[in-house]
């Protein structure tokens, strides 16, 4: 049995696997399958200052080796999250990353300030949602706005702050450096890639929002590349994600430089995916004679 524990920005995780924000709600639906304590952590559904209703349907489309979504940050707002969901989550013996978003830096800061007064373990600031018109990816695609929103949230909280980056940029390393200089404790990446599908019979986009975020196995190599480039450009830790569906996929992201790994679309295919991935990582490490999963972080040997 290998040591699977990792540490990200001072927070201890019993294993590196975290269901990604948006796929796992607040955990309630998946407790039917397994105790949430088996997970390294949970990134909760993105929460904004006030209730958001989200986009019109269809919000989901299938793609080769993946899927598109355009949910559009539907959530009940931060006050309801803190009152109704967070207390329950904090009893689950797993790290809780509260994912937050907003239309303005002020809204993000206000949400973070409210969470600062709770016992949540980490805040994951989403500056990369491709499905909302204001805020979201608009922050994450320029260095100055990424820096400004990170700085605003940094001022509002002393909780460990993870900033979730968009892959829909020309240079992710420049954005990563801007966010690091503004006080982020860690990065999480990559959010979904902007995509589109058209029903060729009706000539209508399948998504009512026309475009949406691509996730699933199709994006794994993009995630590996971006994590590797970013790990070489910043000194803060990275929580990797993007198309992970097996233990070896997770190990690959860690070798590229990730200290922990989020799992998204794979949970739709198999609700047990996070649990199986933890077991498969352990099997891989045992077979390779590696004592701790920490010993694989950033160990890719590039040509």
């Amino acid at each position: 049995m290998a040591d699977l524990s990792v540490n990200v920005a001072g927070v201890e995780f019993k294993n590196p696997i975290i269901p990604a924000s948006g796929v796992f709600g607040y955990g309630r639906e998946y407790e039917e399958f397994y105790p949430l304590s088996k997970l390294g952590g949970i990134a909760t559904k993105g929460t904004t200052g006030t209730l958001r209703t989200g986009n019109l349907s269809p919000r989901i489309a299938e793609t080769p080796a993946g899927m598109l979504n355009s949910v559009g940050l539907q959530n009940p707002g931060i006050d309801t999250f803190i009152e109704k969901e967070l207390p329950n989550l904090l009893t689950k013996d797993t790290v809780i990353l509260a994912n937050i978003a907003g239309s303005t830096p002020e809204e993000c800061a206000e949400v973070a300030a409210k969470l600062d007064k709770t016992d949540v373990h980490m805040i994951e600031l989403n500056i990369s949602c491709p499905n909302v018109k204001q805020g979201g990816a608009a922050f994450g695609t320029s260095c100055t706005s990424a820096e400004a929103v990170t700085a605003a949230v940094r001022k509002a909280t002393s909780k460990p702050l993870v900033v979730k980056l968009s892959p829909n940029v020309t240079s992710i390393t420049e954005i990563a450096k801007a966010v690091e200089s503004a006080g982020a404790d860690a990065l999480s990446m990559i959010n979904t890639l902007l995509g589109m599908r058209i029903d060729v019979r009706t000539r209508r986009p399948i998504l009512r929002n026309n475009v949406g975020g691509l996730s699933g196995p199709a994006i794994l190599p993009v995630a590996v590349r971006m994590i590797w480039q970013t790990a070489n450009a910043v000194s803060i830790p990275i929580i990797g994600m993007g198309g992970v569906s097996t233990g070896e996929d997770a190990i690959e992201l860690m070798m590229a430089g990730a200290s922990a790994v989020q799992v998204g679309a794979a949970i739709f295919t198999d609700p047990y995916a996070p649990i199986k991935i933890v077991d498969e990582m352990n099997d891989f490490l045992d077979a390779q004679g590696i004592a701790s999963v920490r010993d694989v972080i950033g160990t890719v040997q590039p040509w």
Partner: protein
Amino acid sequence: MKYTQGQYPIIEKKTLAKEMYSFVILCPEVAEMASPGQFVHIRIGSFTLRRPISICEIDKVKGTLRIVFEVRGKGTAEIAALNKGDLIDMLAPLGHGFTVNPDAKKVILIGGGIGTPPMLPLAQIYGEKATVITGFRSANAVILQEDFKKTGAETILCTDDGTMGIGGFVTQPFETLVNLGDIDAVYACGPMPMLRGIAALAKANNVPLCEVSLEERMACGVGACLGCACKVKRNDEEYFLHVCKNGPVFNAEEVVW
């Protein structure tokens, strides 16, 4: 809502019509929990997303479920390629099903095309108290008529092109029946224009309960991802509920058509 995930053997496979298949699946723990109107979420080897298929029969004694589905694309084609003896990976039973009224004396069940299968468990419960109106494109797409007759329910068959039963849509015989009055409940599943028409007629005739089963593109199936949004109105406020968890069955009065 209680559900599970597992791989269960297909113990019977039948072709009901062109591209229409019926599977009986041995899954005692799922059958035990299942109720009419719920669905199963089927994993397909080469796709990220599962496919939601409504439950057509529940046999708690034999521990089986029956599903009837139409091949609509590559995913359902892959499910249709499974055979008797193969295992099928299901997340089930999912969703909020139909409300059965034990005191009802007369109910109408309406199924349009591939919306017909979820009406069968209700017909089995209501028996002679039910009138089942089903509609299909054409005679060669008609399914489940013998199954409905066995329940003791009265059956009315429509085809769009008049090649079998009454020519035209299900809304025509429904309108005649509902105008006669004394209907305690109406249940429907089928295309949106059909459901909209039925909901309007049920409301105009003050039917106490009208429930419709809706469809939407879906990811998780359990209410976590918020992908399959459906607009509803409660207490004069419009907001999104989710077909997989709050539905697929909704009170027709709440749906924003």
